[in-house]
């Protein structure tokens, strides 16, 4: 997980969802710990997509969770989310 990516994502979440930046840690779960709902998460996804020039495959992730191929923590715990964003950015390069 890149520190730069983590800080950028944490800043986006803090701004979009009006969450105290200090409460956002690599272990935070976006929904369970930070209380982000699905509509706010779309705003966050929009901002992340634009910031990094990527398209986070949210639908695929949700499908994987719903069909038991992955857990929600794999995508929505901050350190894991940031790791996946790093992968998407690397794949773009």
């Amino acid at each position: 997980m890149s520190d730069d990516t983590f800080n950028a994502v944490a800043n986006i979440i803090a701004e979009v969802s009006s969450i105290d930046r200090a409460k956002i840690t690599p272990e935070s779960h976006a929904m369970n710990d930070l209380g982000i709902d699905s509509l706010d998460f779309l705003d966050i996804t929009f901002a992340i997509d634009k910031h990094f020039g990527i398209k986070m495959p949210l639908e695929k992730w949700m499908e994987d969770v719903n069909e038991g191929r992955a857990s929600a923590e794999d995508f929505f715990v901050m350190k894991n989310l940031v790791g996946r964003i790093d992968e998407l950015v690397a794949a773009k390069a």
Partner: protein
Amino acid sequence: MNLEYFQLIDRVESLDRAANRIQCRATVPTKSTIFEGHFPGYPLMPGVLIVESMAQTSGYLLLSLLKFERMPFLIQIQSAKLRTFVSPGEALTVRATLEHEGSGFAATKAGVEREGKPIADAELRFRTMPFPKPELQGMVRDYARSVGLPVDG
């Protein structure tokens, strides 16, 4: 426009898929039961319907870009400005541009003009998902064709 049936767009005037933009024509009817209440003796096009005209214009753009495989549903009015009154009988031009296509959602910027003068603008977000019913897909496709949106290819 047929306000009672929530049909705000009369004609798709231009569509540029490469540039992700669309322009539509929408003429406010001279008579509607809506004007009896909004407002008695001083009929005005409701602002929410002006926003809806931008949403429907954005919707046609998204339907085309998504090849009618997914249906856009308005989920968020990120911002909207209603700059002046719109009266019965006025002809409006409604434009929309795709701002971003994400995974299962899309964002547009849209605007309304009357004789080149800005009337309203908005930033809108849509959830895009497979049509919940095949009948709806067919009806949407037929209606889009009737207002001049290319539906094939």
